[in-house]
């Protein structure tokens, strides 16, 4: 299957429900703020999309510090969704992205169905928003603080209100947590509720102990594990959901650091990928991954990025060992 192909000739366009992106590489929510800080390293307009830090209705101070701990090939964070609230975001951050020709995917987070609906109405009807990503890894204040993402019913409810209140033509993606017994069950539920696609995965719940204080290291006690350490878990989630829900666009995220990693996610079933923690290691990571992905696609004979999507699933289904 290896055909001589020049990287420059590879068609990188990817289709995510109603959104067509120039290429499949995005930033991961919370790892690129709203794009401004990365502009000194590369032009954010080069990316398929910029996914913004999850925005809530109101301003949030986040959790106490320390907010991070380095772990083997990864890190824990407990930021607690610090942010300025939706008004400031729409007034300041979104316009910046649009002025700079970036494709913004806006991540929203709420602590009640009403908050998600309000965010959907405000964000999902603002011109220029390429898609909405719904971060459901938040506690539901109306249901004993249980995390939406952990319950298929609650997760479905969030997606149904967000889909209802978002303009047609603006795809709504649900971002799922891997900390569940069956990610396929959650995926199915949010898709039935109206999600146009899925983002897999958010961080894994972890903890670190600081022996100097004999206490959990993070101010928030537990935190989210990210980075290459979790890549096999993310890839598994993509593979499982791609097999269970063929045809639903998936965006892979978790430990992606190179073009090889990105291609693995594509062939496992993702139509696009997000680069998160790798940015902290290499601020150029998103554009480097994009360039490397182009080279890898060519080297493996894929004339179009779309042809790689789900390749491993299809060959598995045919029982073919390519």
């Amino acid at each position: 299957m290896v055909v001589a192909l020049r990287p420059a000739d590879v068609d990188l366009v990817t289709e995510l429900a109603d959104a067509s992106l120039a290429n499949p590489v995005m930033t991961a929510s919370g790892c690129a703020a709203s794009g401004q800080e990365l502009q000194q390293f590369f032009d954010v307009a080069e990316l398929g999309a910029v996914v913004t830090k999850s925005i809530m209705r109101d301003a949030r101070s986040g959790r106490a510090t320390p907010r991070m701990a380095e772990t083997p090939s990864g890190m824990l964070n407990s930021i607690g969704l610090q942010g300025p609230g939706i008004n400031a975001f729409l007034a300041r951050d979104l316009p910046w992205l649009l002025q700079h020709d970036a494709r913004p995917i806006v991540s929203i987070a709420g602590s009640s169905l009403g908050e998600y609906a309000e965010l959907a109405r405000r964000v999902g009807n603002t011109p220029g928003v390429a898609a909405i990503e719904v971060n459901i890894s938040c506690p539901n204040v109306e249901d004993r603080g249980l995390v939406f993402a952990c319950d298929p019913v609650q997760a479905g409810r969030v997606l149904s209100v967000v889909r209802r209140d978002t303009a047609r033509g603006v795809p709504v993606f649900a971002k799922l947590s891997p900390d569940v017994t069956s990610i396929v069950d959650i995926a199915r539920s949010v898709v039935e509720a109206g999600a146009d696609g899925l983002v897999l995965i958010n961080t894994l719940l972890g903890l670190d102990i600081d022996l100097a204080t004999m206490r959990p290291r993070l101010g928030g006690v537990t935190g989210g594990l990210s980075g290459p350490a979790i890549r096999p878990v993310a890839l598994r989630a993509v593979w499982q959901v791609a097999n269970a829900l063929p045809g639903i666009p998936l965006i892979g995220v978790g430990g992606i650091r190179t073009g090889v990693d990105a291609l693995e996610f594509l062939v496992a079933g993702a139509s696009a990928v997000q680069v998160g923690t790798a940015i902290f290691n290499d601020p150029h990571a998103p554009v480097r991954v994009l360039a490397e992905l182009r080279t890898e696609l060519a080297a493996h004979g894929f004339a179009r990025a779309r042809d790689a999507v789900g390749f491993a699933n299809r060959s598995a289904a045919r029982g073919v060992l390519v």
Partner: protein
Amino acid sequence: MVSTEAMVGRGAVQVDGEVLSNKRVGVYHHLTLVADGIAERTKPGNFVALSVGGATSAHLLRRAFSIYRVRPAGVYGGTVEVVFAAHGPGTQWLADRQPHDAVNVVGPLGRPFALPKEPVACALVGGGYGSAPLFALAEKLRERSCGAHMVLGAATESRLFGALEAKRAAQSVTVTTEDGSVGIKGLVTDPLPGLIARHSIDVVYSCGPMGMLSAVTRVATAHGAWSQTAVEESMACGIGVCMTCVLPVIGDDGVTKMVRSCVEGPVFAGDKVRWDDIGTIPAGTFGAPGMGGH
């Protein structure tokens, strides 16, 4: 407070650096990297973020170091120098680097020390390796005809950095050690009030452990001087995108915000930092109290 536009880093580059030299100085390591493009952009108080562990590294996060010195491209290309203590795996790895080894550099990062507009007298207070960024600052102050009086302190002599160099760089030098192995036995804050009074110091710059910065700020404020402190908070990205490096700082509007020390700092007006509340979200902070989620 400063506007967002100003807070967003604009001048940093990422370069494949190469070790030119790596020398022991007391308990510290003085590392010189060839890294083009850093020198031209650097102002006193900026820092660099170095990757550690090489191609097979399990350590993803960069390590932040104050810039000690820079030289624009010459025989070797531009260089940047840092002084650091080896304590964890990342700094240990850096301590083991040999000439020609590769170290990736991102910088210069952060907001530099604010400089006085008038030719006023200044104190520059450094704790341990915290003195490193003060030498370039002293030079800039001299260029502006500001007096530069240095106070260097450490637990013991081997943990002092640059006492000799300070003699060249500053108008006066005061050294303190906790064990009295050299200079005045005590803390940097002991001689500070006298120094401020003696030289009519208007601005006190400081860099070192958080406890020291807090104490220096208290002394400066009590004596009517401005303080500029370079803080050291745990950083994941160093470039403003992750929100890990925050601390409570009072804005011009009087409201406390959790601000990023990597782009809105590391230099802050000392009297704006809520030193005693670091590690908490003080009541009344913009956006507090938060609820779960990550």
